[in-house]
C-alpha cells in the first residue's frame, strides 16, 4: 500500500492522487477472487481506507482548497468504486462459468421410464368406438344384452322355425337343460338385443347393438367367439331406400372414403323379409383394399325389412310399424379397414400383435378429429 491514510499529515498534491489511482486500479485488476477484491475495497473505500482518509482531511482545508481537492478526491473515489464493481462482475461471471463447466450430463442416457407410453387399445374396442361415433351422428343409441340368452330371444321370437339348422348343436353353443327342459344358449348373433329393445321401448327405435357372439365354428376365418354389430330402425315409414342410404353413409364414414358402391342381392334370413346381402365394390392390391373403385365385389353384410312375425312377436303391429335391420362383423370390419390378415390373432393377446395393430389411448375416434388416427 502506497499511502497509509493515518500517516498523511500534509496536503496531497494532484500528482499524488494520480499515483494513488493507478495503484488502486492495478490492485483491483490483480484481485484474483472476491475476497482479494474485498481487501482492496476495505483498504481504499473502507472506514479507514486511503480514499476515506483523504476525504476526512478535507475539513481542515480552506474553502478554496476544499473545492479543488474535494472534487479531485471524489472523482478518484468514483473511479475506484466503478472499477471495483466491474471487477466484481467479471469475477462472478468467471466463478459461474467455472461451476457450470463442472456440471455436465450424458444427455444420451435414456429418459426416466414412462410406463404410459406402452398402453394400447384393442382394434375391436377402437372399431366399436368408431361405430358408436358414426351412428350417434345418425341418431342411433347403443343397446346391449346378455351373452347367455334364452332360446326364445335368440331364435323363436326372431322367427326361426323350431327345426331350423341354426338350432343344431353343430352351430350353436348350448347350456345343459334346466328342470323344465329349457336350454339357454350363447347368443349366435346380437339380434336378440333387437327383441329386447322392441319389448322394452316403443317406436320410434334407432339402435345399434354391438357385442360378443358365439358359434361352434373354428377355422382360419371363423373363431368360436366373434363380434357383431346390428342396427335396428322401427317407425311408421322407414323403407329399403332409407336402409340403403344409412348403409352407404355408414360405410363411407367408416372406411373414410368419399364414395362407396353397393350391390344388393336378394337373400334369406328368418327375421327379415325382404332380405338382402350387400356387396361393396373394391379393388385389392398388395393386401390393401380400396373401396369405391375396382372390379371386385366383397360380401360385407346382411340386412332386410324386419319380418312381420318378429314385429308381432315383440308386441308391435306390423300394419302400423315397419323398419329394417342389418348385421355386420366387427372383427371383419377391423380387418378390412386396418389390414389384419388373420382373425384368430385378435384373441391371442400376443403383445407384439397388440402393439402393432392396437391404438394409443388418446386416439379416441371422433367425427371432429377424424375417425382413425
Amino acid at each position, binding site marked *: 500500500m502506497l499511502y497509509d491514510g493515518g500517516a498523511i499529515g500534509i496536503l496531497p498534491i494532484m500528482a499524488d492522487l494520480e499515483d494513488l489511482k493507478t495503484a488502486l486500479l492495478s490492485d483491483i485488476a490483480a484481485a484474483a477472487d472476491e475476497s482479494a477484491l474485498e481487501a482492496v475495497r476495505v483498504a481504499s473505500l473502507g472506514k479507514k481506507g486511503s480514499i476515506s482518509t483523504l476525504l476526512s482531511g478535507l475539513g481542515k482545508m480552506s474553502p478554496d482548497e476544499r473545492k479543488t481537492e474535494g472534487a479531485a478526491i471524489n472523482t478518484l473515489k468514483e473511479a475506484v468504486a466503478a472499477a471495483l464493481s466491474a471487477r466484481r462482475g467479471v469475477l462472478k461471471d468467471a466463478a459461474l462459468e467455472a461451476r457450470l463447466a463442472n456440471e455436465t450430463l450424458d444427455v444420451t442416457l435414456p429418459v426416466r421410464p414412462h410406463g404410459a407410453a406402452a398402453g394400447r387399445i384393442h382394434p375391436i374396442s377402437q372399431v366399436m368406438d368408431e361405430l358408436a361415433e358414426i351412428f350417434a351422428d345418425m341418431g342411433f343409441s347403443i343397446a346391449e344384452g346378455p351373452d347367455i340368452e334364452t332360446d326364445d330371444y335368440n331364435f323363436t321370437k326372431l322367427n326361426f322355425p323350431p327345426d331350423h339348422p341354426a338350432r343344431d348343436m353343430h352351430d350353436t353353443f348350448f347350456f345343459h337343460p334346466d328342470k323344465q327342459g329349457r336350454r339357454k344358449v350363447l347368443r349366435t348373433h346380437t339380434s336378440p338385443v333387437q327383441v329386447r329393445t322392441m319389448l322394452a321401448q316403443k317406436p320410434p327405435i*334407432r339402435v345399434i347393438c354391438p357385442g360378443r357372439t358365439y358359434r361352434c365354428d373354428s377355422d382360419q376365418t371363423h373363431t368360436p367367439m366373434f363380434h357383431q354389430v346390428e342396427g335396428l330402425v322401427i317407425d311408421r315409414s322407414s323403407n329399403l331406400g332409407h336402409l340403403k342410404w344409412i348403409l352407404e353413409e355408414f360405410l363411407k364414414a367408416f372406411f373414410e372414403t368419399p364414395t362407396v358402391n353397393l350391390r344388393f342381392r336378394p337373400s334369406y334370413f328368418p327375421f327379415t323379409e325382404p332380405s338382402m346381402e350387400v356387396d361393396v365394390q373394391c379393388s385389392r392390391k398388395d393386401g390393401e383394399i380400396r373401396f369405391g373403385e375396382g372390379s371386385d365385389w366383397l360380401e360385407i353384410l346382411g340386412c332386410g325389412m324386419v319380418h312381420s312375425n318378429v314385429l308381432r312377436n315383440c308386441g308391435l303391429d306390423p300394419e302400423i310399424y315397419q323398419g329394417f335391420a342389418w348385421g355386420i362383423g366387427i372383427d371383419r370390419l377391423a380387418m378390412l379397414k386396418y389390414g389384419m390378415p388373420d382373425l384368430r390373432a385378435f384373441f391371442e393377446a400376443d403383445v407384439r400383435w*397388440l402393439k402393432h395393430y392396437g391404438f394409443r389411448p388418446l386416439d379416441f375416434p371422433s367425427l371432429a378429429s377424424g375417425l382413425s388416427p
Partner: protein
Amino acid sequence: MKFTLSWLKDHLETDASLTEIVDALTRIGLEVEHVEDPAAALHDFKIARIVEAKPHPNADRLQVCLVETGGEGLVQVVCGAPNARAGLKTVFAPPGAVIPAKQITLSKGVIRGVESNGMLCSGAELGLSGDHDGILELPEAAPVGLQFAPWAGLADPVIEFNLLPNRPDAMGVEGVARDLAAAGLGRFKGRKITPVPASLSVAFAARIDLAAGDSHLAPAFALRLIRGVRNGESPDWLRKRLTAIGLRPINALVDITNYLSFDRARPLHVFDAAKVKGDLVVRRARAGESLNALDGRVYALDEEMIVIADDRGPQSLAGIMGGADTGCDEATTEVLIEAALWHPANIARTGRRLGINSDARYRFERSVDPAFLLPGLELATALTLEFCGGAASDIALAGKIPERDHRIVFFQGEVTRLTGLDLPPSEITGILEHLGFELVYSPGNSDRFVVKVPSFRPDIEGPADLVEEVIRIAGLDRVASRPFARESAGAPAPKLTPLQRRVRTAKRALAAAGLVEAVTWSFISHARAEAFGGGAAELSLANPIAAELSDMRPSLLPGLIASAQRNADRGHGDVALFEVGQIFFGEEEGDQKIAAAALRQGLAKTSGAGRNWLTGAQPADVFDVKADALALLTALGVPTSGLQIVPGGPDWLHPGRSATLQFGPKTKIGYFGEIHPRALAAMGADGPLVCFEVVLNDIPVTKSKPTKTKPRLELFELMPLQRDFAFVVDRSVLAGELVKAALAADKALIVKAEVFDVYEGPGVAEGKKSVAISVTLQPRDRTLTESDIDAVAAKIVAEASQRAGASLRG
C-alpha cells in the same frame, strides 16, 4: 346346386348369353358361385387321324406316328398307346396345350432319340373318364382338324349357385328356369307331363304302418311297378349331364332318379322288385335294426328313423338313402319306383345322426313340392319305358297328398311401403304371375287382390314375402337410397348409458396407465373356472368346442394370466395386460356382468417395463396394480373418499398381499393383490403376478344432478401449513388407520394426511414400526397461532394413540 346351360334350355327358351344368365341369377337371389366351361380347358385339343404308325427304333412299347391334324403337312408324334394304329381318329394336343388331368404344359421333345411334336390323348388325360389304357378312338365320321370339345358335346358350361334355404323350388332346374323367365331372360316352357296308362295288371300294395300321431312323418307313399325292363347304360345326353354336375352315371334306372332329383327337385328311389320280399311298408325303424346302404356302409338305426321295409327288414332309409340288398343293377328286370313325402325335420335329424349327406336328404329336409309327387312318378315311368322298355302297373298310393291352398290378401301399395320403389301395377302382377302365383281380383278393386301361392313355394307366408318376390325380380338396384333425417321425433337422443360410459372410459384409462388391451375367450377350462370361483354346472357348456373352452369365465384373470404366460413363453415376459369384458356369475341376465381387470408380470411396473439405469430392475408389485385400480376409479369419477381398502381378497390371491375394494361390507366392487401360488399352479403360470379386478356394474351410480353447473370453487386467502408426525405402532397396525385418525382429529382444519415414511429396524423396538405422516392444515378465517397448532397436534397424537395405539417416536 349345379346345372348346365343346355339343361337349363330344356326349360327356358332364351337367346341370352351365359354372362347375361349368370348376372341375372345373382341379381335375383340365386347367387352364382362358380361357372365352369369344360370346353375352355380343351380349347387346343383337335380331332386328328393317324396316317402312319411305325415301331420306335429304340423302344419296344413306343410307336412313331405321323398324324394328320388339319394343318399343313403331317405331325410326328411318339406314342405309347397300344391301340395307336394307322387310320385311327383320335384327339391331338399340340405343344403348348395343358393336359387337364395332369396340369402339364406340353412341349416339343425328343423321346429316345425321336422327335415328338405333341401328344395323342386318352380319356383319362382329358379328364373325361378313367380310361387310360389307350388313346381315344373316335368314329370315322369325326372331322379332322375340328376342335374336339364342341364336336363331342362337351361345350356345355356348368353353373353352380348358392341355394338359399327358403328356395326349395330352385333345387330343380325347372324352378331356376321359372325365375329367369320372370326376370325377362326368356320364355318358361312349363313342359307338360302326360300320365302313362297302365299296361300291366298286377296286385301289389304300398303301405304306411305308423301310429295315428305319426302320420306327419310320412304323409304319402307311392309305388309303381314296371316289369320287363332292360337296365343298362342310360343315353349319352343323360350321362353327360350327370357327369357335368359331378354325379357318377350308374345305370339307367338309377340315373333317372338322380336326373329328376335335379331336373324337378323330385327325389325318387328304385327297388329291384325281384329282391323285395313281400310288401314295402313305411314304418319306424326298430331298435337294433340296421341298413346295408347303397354307399356300402352299414347304418345302425333307431326308433326315431323312418324306413321302408319288406318282410326281412329295412330296405331303404326313407328320403335319405336306399339299401344295397334291393338296389337296381344291370340284371334288374322288374323295378319298383318310389315317390313319397317325408317330414323335413325328421329327415334332417336322421341324416345328421347318421352323417349321410345325400341329394335326397338335401331336398327332403328343405321340403319338396307335394303336388309334384304323382307327376314326378309319371315322368320317371315315362323315362323308364323310354330307356329300358317294359310294362308299367297302376300307381299304388298310401296316405294322402296334402293339398296346400295358401292365399294372401295383397295390396299393391305394400311394395312401395316396404321398399320405397313405386312400380307400375302391371309389373307387380306380371312378376307374380310369371313366378307361378295365381291372382284373384275382387270386383272394382284393382289395387287389392288375393294371391294363391303355388305348392312349390312353401316359403311364401305373407305380404312381405310377395314384396320380396316382386323386388328381387324387378331389381333391387332400382331402389333409390333415401336420406334419413338425423332426428326422429320421439326416439331417445343417442347417449351412452352410465355402464357403457364406464366401459369406454375404463379401456382408455387403463391403456393410458400403460396397459395393453387383450380380448380373450369368454369360456375357459372347468379347472380354471373353479380356481377362480366359478365352475357352476349352469355355466358349463353342453357342447364346448374344446375341453379347455368349456365353462363361462367367472373372472377375466384366467384369460389374462394364460395370455401373459404365452407371451412370456415367447420371450416377452414383462407384459402389462388388461381386459374389459363380460364375466359370468349365473345364467340370468343380472348375473352377467362387465369387469375390468389388469395383470402385471415381470418388470412391467407402472413407471415402465424392464430394467433401467435410474432405478435398476424392479418387479411389478402390489402397489403397481393398486395404482392401476385407483387410476381406473378416478377416471370413472368414483368418489374415492368413501372407498375402503380392506386387507385380504378372494381365495385366488395371496392372503397377506391382497385387498378388497369396497364402499362397505355389502358393496364390494373388486380387489387387487398378488396371485396365490396355488392359483398360479392351476394356471400353469410362473409368478409372481399382480392383478386387480373391478366389477363395473357393482360400482354405485352417483345420482345425476339436476344441473350441469359445478359447485362453487372455494379459494382460501390463508396459506396451508404442514406438520409432520412420526408415530411408533405395532407392526400389525395399518398405516391407513393412522391416516384416518389424523384426519378425524379436526375435520374443519385438517384437509390432508399422507404417509411419507415407514421404517422398521434399529432404533425402533422389535415388533414395532415407525410411520411418519404429513398433515396439512388449512386455516379458514384467521391465521393460526402456535398454540392453535399445538392444540391440533395434541389432538392428532391423542387420536392416533386411541385408535392405533400409537406413540410419538422419541
